[in-house]
């Protein structure tokens, strides 16, 4: 080989390397025939490398300021008093002792609270995120046991708490419904989730069930669950020159600011809501009564207010997951092919909200079956409005469905992994859409391999170690890919000498899962910058756009908004570059970003750095804002994440105690952006699933609708000793129809876990427990 050939090859190699580093503009929609996000092809960049949370050190040192740590001068502290009947009227309030208690600033009840509009209940309009369709402290009516009915402001939190404990209320109770049987007796209605009916009918499932040679037909029950983020809800609130400033813990800063503005008749620019850190969300860090009461009290007192819910307060004010009763019936051929799939049942909600627990969502795309019948009915109870809780629908729906599949596998004598693979659909069985990305079979095969599924004893109750019966179980988990409209991103590119840095701002929420870190990773890679050149702004309603950290959609929403903003930035930079630039005359779609500048896609030597462009244009910075394209991909494909969960349990034959000794989650969730934070999210979801399987249960006293275990001592979640080593693997196969090829992964981790545990308990003991949690008395 001549020296010239070698040089040629070297030059080609360099060119090749430059092209690989270059990030062309991404499409701003993902429609059939469209081009995938070019970042998907980037295999050796920041995406996919483990990066520690950017705020990790701050949090460990206690220097990250949470909602209850903001401070205003002359701030007063709030404490709430809660109703003790489920329905009725307040006929008298004795506040003499509280008024006279040390440090009290005021006692606010419906008698003296400022007039406020009723918040728009969540889902009633695109921006409404109110907790319930109820006025707050505007009348004498009680709608649930635990409703906040008074607020005390005092100079210290201790004084406020003490004074609140001195308040006395007299009630005129009215008839109420607080029992499941009572709610059923009042009648059922078809459930609507986000305005859509929770109902699907394909073929004739009843007829197919009647003639199927193998049938499983069982009822599964899941209890109420309460939210227990490590950070109880809090807000620090001030009225400044007629504008309302709220430092909150929020998963939805923009929508919350809008709804609060409507309550107080404020123009949108007169409410600013920030939420720089959130100590866990899981669906509960939204708008509840306490922020509204806090803002009203601040207005009445003419002083800033900090309102912090006690743990009990979280149980009284913040809704949780409602209970379900689910029937799953599967009819199968002798070979194990599903011919009928029925998943129907009841969920409980209130007269003042619209949130059935949508447990059939995960069933819609789960298995190939010609005859499918799905339906969620609701009945109403006088209780605190229930709400979203990690994987609403799928968390409890997969428990019922995946236990039933396991029961069918036993009946058929087929390995439950193989039975699932046998019934793998080639398109969405209810919508008829093609799947955007479905590699569940790989997830099952990889998981079975890693876990050692082949070592399972097929016959139940046959493995034992002393008192401990050992069993293995598995289940499928699933959660949809979503992307909600409304996201925007603002990019500010700033020059400092020859250096540049970018600020990417999104009205998103960082709840501890690593969103700000992942946004920096993706933003840096898309802009051709290093990680330390990118700063991320978030958690502030003054940032344009609306992004909700819910439905596991935030990563995709941010991704699409940053794509739009990147496209706008490139167009703006080309304009600024002008005729003296090496890029002169190039159109935006022929250039990409690399190495802190722009370059021609097919000839990266034709390039100019961001700093050079800005310098020549005599600009210190350039700012662009752009809105993400509409989420059209959701109309064209059935889009879901999947998991295969394997676990091993040990059940004590003497006491019935269950301990999970091993668990593995094998995930198929598109491309994983940051393996380090992803692993934590998967593990966290799995731990929450273990709690759901074995211990979590809100004790709702059916005599009066009162929650009786409003504390982490009595509401059991797993402690360290309950959590074994959790193994997490993933396919890492990009979804060609999403930004970065990624799916949000906040919720899928909890799905499938309870079923895998219950199926393992069956394998260990031969006993089926169909009502959660699987407490020891159910196994004695």
């Amino acid at each position: 080989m001549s020296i010239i050939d070698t040089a040629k090859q070297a030059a080609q190699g360099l060119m090749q390397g430059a092209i690989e580093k270059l990030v062309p503009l991404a499409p701003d929609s993902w429609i059939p025939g469209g081009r995938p996000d070019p970042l998907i092809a980037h295999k050796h960049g920041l995406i996919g490398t483990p990066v520690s949370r950017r705020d990790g050190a701050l949090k460990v040192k206690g220097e990250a300021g949470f909602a209850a740590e903001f401070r205003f001068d002359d701030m007063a502290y709030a404490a709430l008093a809660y109703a003790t009947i489920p329905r009725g009227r307040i006929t008298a309030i004795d506040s003499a002792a509280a008024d006279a208690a040390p440090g009290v600033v005021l006692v606010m009840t419906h008698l003296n609270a400022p007039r406020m509009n009723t918040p728009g209940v969540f889902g009633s309009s695109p921006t409404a995120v109110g907790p319930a369709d109820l006025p707050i402290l505007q009348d004498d009516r009680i709608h649930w046991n635990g409703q906040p009915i008074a607020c005390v402001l005092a100079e210290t939190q201790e004084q406020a708490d003490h004074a609140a404990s001195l308040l006395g209320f007299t009630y005129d109770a009215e008839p109420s419904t607080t029992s499941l049987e009572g709610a059923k007796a009042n009648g059922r209605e078809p459930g609507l989730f986000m305005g859509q009916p929770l109902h699907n009918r394909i073929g004739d499932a009843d007829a197919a069930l009647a003639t199927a040679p193998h049938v499983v037909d069982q009822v599964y029950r899941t209890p109420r669950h309460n939210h227990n983020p490590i950070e109880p809800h809090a807000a620090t609130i001030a009225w400044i020159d007629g504008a309302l400033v709220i430092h909150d813990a929020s998963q939805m800063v923009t929508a919350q600011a809008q709804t609060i503005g409507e309550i107080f008749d404020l123009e949108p620019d007169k409410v600013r809501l920030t939420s720089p850190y959130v100590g866990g969300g899981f669906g509960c860090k939204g708008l509840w009564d306490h922020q509204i009461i806090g803002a009203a009290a601040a207005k009445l007192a003419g002083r800033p207010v900090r309102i912090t819910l006690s743990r009990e307060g979280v149980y009284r004010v913040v809704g949780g997951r409602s209970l379900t009763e689910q029937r799953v019936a599967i009819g199968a051929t002798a070979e194990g092919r599903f011919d009928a799939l029925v998943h129907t049942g009841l969920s409980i909600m209130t007269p003042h909200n619209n949130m059935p627990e949508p447990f059939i969502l995960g069933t819609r795309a789960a298995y190939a079956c010609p005859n499918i019948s799905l339906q969620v009915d609701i009945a109403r109870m006088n209780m605190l409005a229930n709400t979203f809780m990690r994987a609403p629908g799928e968390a409890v729906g997969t428990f019922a469905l995946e236990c039933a599949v396991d029961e069918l596998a036993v009946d058929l004598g087929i390995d439950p992994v193989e039975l699932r693979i046998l019934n793998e659909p080639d398109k969405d069985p209810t919508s008829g859409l093609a799947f955007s990305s479905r590699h569940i079979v790989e997830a099952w095969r990889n998981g079975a391999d890693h876990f050692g599924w082949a070592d399972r004893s097929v016959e139940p109750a046959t493995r034992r170690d002393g008192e401990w019966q050992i069993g293995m179980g598995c289940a499928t988990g699933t959660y949809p890919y979503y992307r909600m409209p409304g996201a925007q991103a603002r990019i500010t590119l700033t020059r400092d000498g020859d250096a540049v840095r970018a600020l990417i701002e999104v009205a998103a929420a960082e709840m501890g899962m690593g969103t700000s870190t992942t946004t920096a990773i993706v933003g840096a890679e898309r802009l051709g910058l290093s990680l330390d050149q990118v700063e991320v702004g978030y958690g502030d309603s003054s940032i344009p756009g609306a992004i909700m950290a819910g439905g596991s959609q935030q990563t995709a929403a941010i991704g699409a908004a940053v794509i739009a903003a990147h496209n706008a930035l490139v167009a703006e930079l080309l304009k600024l570059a002008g005729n003296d630039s090496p890029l002169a005359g190039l159109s935006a779609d022929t250039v990409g970003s690399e190495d802190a500048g722009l370059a021609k896609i097919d000839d990266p030597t034709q390039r100019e750095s961001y700093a050079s462009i800005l310098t020549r244009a005599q600009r210190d910075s350039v700012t662009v804002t752009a809105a993400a394209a509409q989420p059209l991909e959701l109309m064209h494909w059935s889009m879901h994440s999947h998991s295969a969960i394997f676990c091993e349990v040990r059940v004590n034959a003497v006491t019935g105690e269950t301990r999970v000794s091993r668990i593995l989650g094998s995930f198929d969730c598109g491309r994983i952006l940051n393996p380090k934070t992803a692993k934590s999210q998967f593990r966290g979801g799995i731990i929450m699933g273990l709690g759901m399987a074995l211990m979590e249960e809100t004790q709702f006293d059916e005599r009066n609708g009162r929650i009786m275990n409003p504390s982490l001592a009595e509401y059991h979640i797993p402690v360290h000793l309950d959590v074994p080593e959790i193994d997490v693997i993933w396919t890492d196969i990009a979804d060609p129809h999403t930004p970065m090829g990624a799916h949000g992964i906040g919720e899928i981790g909890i799905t499938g876990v309870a079923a895998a545990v219950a199926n393992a308990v069956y394998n260990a003991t031969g006993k089926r427990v169909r009502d959660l949690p699987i407490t020891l008395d159910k196994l004695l």
Partner: protein
Amino acid sequence: MTPFTYLRADTVNDAVRLGAGETAAFLGGGTNIVDLMRETVARHETLVDVTRLSAAVTETAEGGLLIGAAATNTAVAEHHGVRTRYPMLSRAILAGASAQIRNMATVGGNLLQRTRCTYFYDTDGSHCNKRAPGTGCDAREGFNRIHAILGASDACVATHPSDMCVALTALDAVVHVEGRDGARTLPFGELHRLPGDRPDLDTVLAAGDLITAIELPPLGVAARSTYRKVRDRASYAFALISVAAAIEMDGDRIADVRIAFGGVAHKPWRATKAEPALRGELASEAVFRAAAAAEFADARPLRDNAFKPELATRTLAAVLAELAKGDVA
């Protein structure tokens, strides 16, 4: 929390003098009383800190141990003499709470823990004869999974939550008390009461009485002893059932035995019916179960705790089988 005055006693006499008022209470580690005050279950106006009083664990002339009431749970659990001569006590302590709480909690305070009945804690919304005498008991027909199956009354079905006290009951410990009329002792089994019609009274102590020490008598049988706690998660949960047991074998025969149950009654429950049914018998599953059957013949389970007699029976049988084999290290 009601505003209160904090005082600290350096001597027993000081403590008794300072703690004399009706609204005063003694403060050990504060791991229960501070919670009770925060929840306004208790509204003490004076707290007398007694953690500076004796925390020593010393040998007695009789060959037992005297444990100062200010000793922390951790210190007692780790004490060599306790671990070797009374292992059930060490294990009972370690089965309770968390390491952080055990580091704070004191022996004296542990004896005076109050029930974890959720209706007792719900000052605003629930009826409870223990918290507010005469208002009724919402637990009897409500959530009562952790509640009593023995010795309860119409007025109260609560259980005593301590693990340590179950072992102390089995070990025939003696409580040293200093009161307005001077010092006295009482057998551990007489410290806690059954609820009767006065469930507001957990113990026989009078207002102002201060527990100064716990005495463990020399007890050979205790060297082969253990504590087993059954609960709804692996740690940090109160007992559904717990068993403290000691056994002395003579060949295959049970020469001597001590048994107490936790999670079954308003007080730590000494198994006065099961013990005689076992002494002198050949160790066997059938004998163990028969002894448990004798103990729980009068059990009156409630809506949520019907599993307890069987769970207690199984747990006792498993513990005795293990002890009889000498398997417990």
